[in-house]
């Protein structure tokens, strides 16, 4: 009994690390330029298909698909920034929401149209084996995905807080005009933020695809999970996203275990409404 429960919690933590990783991309963009990317879930979806294509054409696993998906998605993010987001940032909010929502539809149904609605999946043995740690059995694919996600999320946090590039980005977030006077180019920094955020979604998507089904509409669910994570963790906070992501992963796993798999999304979405009512500033935000 306890062993099963521990296994459920461990599985939830590993999944939560992935939630944390792609939610930190969303929170980075929101915190930096006050734009909500409604296409963020579809970035993850696109990365899952990238990983599928890498396996199908090259026969390679996550060692190749993770960096490739990161590069592809970072490119998509930067292009989206220069072609679309940059022009609507100062427009009324409706234009911002329409822009990223339109991008989401475009990607989702572009993939639907090209690959079809069928669920795809990578072979189970791509990341083979199951590890047995103190009686808790964990599939290698999930273990790898969780560990890499934790590392990348931590790396992103360090990049933002400990490097020159991070300081420049935070300066732009704080005061664009002042940053420009200091010789920082706001557009370049914001493009970097989009690249990083989409790249993080790319890594997360490639990792998730090793143990989860791939479908054009999977991004919709993932986007809502990211919204819940970001609102729970507090906006613009990568550590907040990490804590909230892990928490949501565990809550999802436990509710799937106790109430049933179909109800896990209901629990997560209800949690979102509860957060909005009780603590709209997030767990780690200030009132």
């Amino acid at each position: 009994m306890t062993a099963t429960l521990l296994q459920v919690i461990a599985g939830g933590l590993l999944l939560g690390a992935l939630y944390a990783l792609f939610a930190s991309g969303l929170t980075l963009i929101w915190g930096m330029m006050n734009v909500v990317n409604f296409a963020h879930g579809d970035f993850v979806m696109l990365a899952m298909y990238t990983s599928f294509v890498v396996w199908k054409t090259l026969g390679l696993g996550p060692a190749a698909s993770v960096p490739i998906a990161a590069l592809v998605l970072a490119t998509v993010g930067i292009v989206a920034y220069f072609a679309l987001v940059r022009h609507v940032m100062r427009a009324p909010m409706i234009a911002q929401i329409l822009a990223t929502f339109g991008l989401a539809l475009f990607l989702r149904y572009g993939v639907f149209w090209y690959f079809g609605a069928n669920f795809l999946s990578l072979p189970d043995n791509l990341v083979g084996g199951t590890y047995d740690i103190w009686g808790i059995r964990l599939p290698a694919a999930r273990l790898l995905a969780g560990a890499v996600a934790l590392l990348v999320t931590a790396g992103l946090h360090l990049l933002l807080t400990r490097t020159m590039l991070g300081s420049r980005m935070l300066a732009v977030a704080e005061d664009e005009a002042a940053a420009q006077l200091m010789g920082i180019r706001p557009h370049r920094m914001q493009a970097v933020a989009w690249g990083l955020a989409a790249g993080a979604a790319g890594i997360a998507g490639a990792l998730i695809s090793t143990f989860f089904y791939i479908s054009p509409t999977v991004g919709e669910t993932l986007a809502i999970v990211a919204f819940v994570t970001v609102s729970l963790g507090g906006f613009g906070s990568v550590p907040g996203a990490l804590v909230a992501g892990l928490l949501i992963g565990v809550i999802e796993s436990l509710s799937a275990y106790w109430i049933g798999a179909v109800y896990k999304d209901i629990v997560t979405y209800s949690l979102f409404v509860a957060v909005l009512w009780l603590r709209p500033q997030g767990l780690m935000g200030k009132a």
Partner: protein
Amino acid sequence: MGLLRRFLWPAIWLLVLLAFPLVWDTPFQQRLGTLVLLYAIAASAWNIVGGYAGQVSVGHVVFFGCGAYGALATYTHLGLPPIAGLPLGVAASVAIAAVVGVPTLRLSGHYFSMATIAVAELVRLVVANTEFLGAAVGLSGPTVPRSVLDLSFTSSLPYYYLFLAVLAGTLALTWRMENSRMGYYLRAIKDSERAARSLGAAASRYKMRAYLLSAALTAVAGSMYAIMIGFIDPESGLGILISVKILIMAALGGTGTLFGPLVGAAILVPLEEISNNVFGGGGAGLTFVVYGAVIMLLARFQPGGLLELLGRLRARAAGRGARRAA
């Protein structure tokens, strides 16, 4: 001349709307006109909160679903005509709007948008797992009308005029709101962040009022849909794509304009029907690729919608004419 211009064009347009299904009288054309009006009702209702109040709901289908499920659940469980369930659907919509609106309308508009999409998905999942509401299978209306109150007709024609009347009511309410104190407040809030802040509680109260009105009217559209089609399931009543259609129609015609949503519906509904006919089921994906592209282009180049573009072109032409005369 002024008087003529003021009344002539509205009269002509009204006549066109009234005569449309009699002039274009094949079943396909009548059905097309009816669907245009139905979506115009929903898009006009969305416009009240999304356009006038500037709070972009991306989960408006939840209210549409409330209206649709209210009507058909009333028929299924109480044996009453579906239309008797309309108040139930409206009440459920207003309750859900309050749950979403009260905490989010005080915060930045992004919270509102995210909450609307999450709550719509939440309700869809709950309904899809509730036997009482037909779960994944859905609910059906009366197959054979028991009386005229069932509003079950084989021809689209009665629905056309019913929907036209509902649309007229929706637009009349919108027009009254636009020209009331509430309309002025909403414009002020939308135009300036500072005005919104200085109005404080009043600002969120007016936004809330717009949201509730919009939710109630969208539920009416949902009931109308369920009564006409006679069937509802989680996908057709609560699927995210309905939200998308409602939103893009309003945005294409022009958010915050009285007739924008009608214009948007009149362009997009025929386009979608034609593309479904030409491409068949395989075109479904393509239609939404195009929708996505249209929304992005609108946001990038013409966030005010087509009516604003038309107005600007007309003003430019008038300016050119004036220069030539001088």
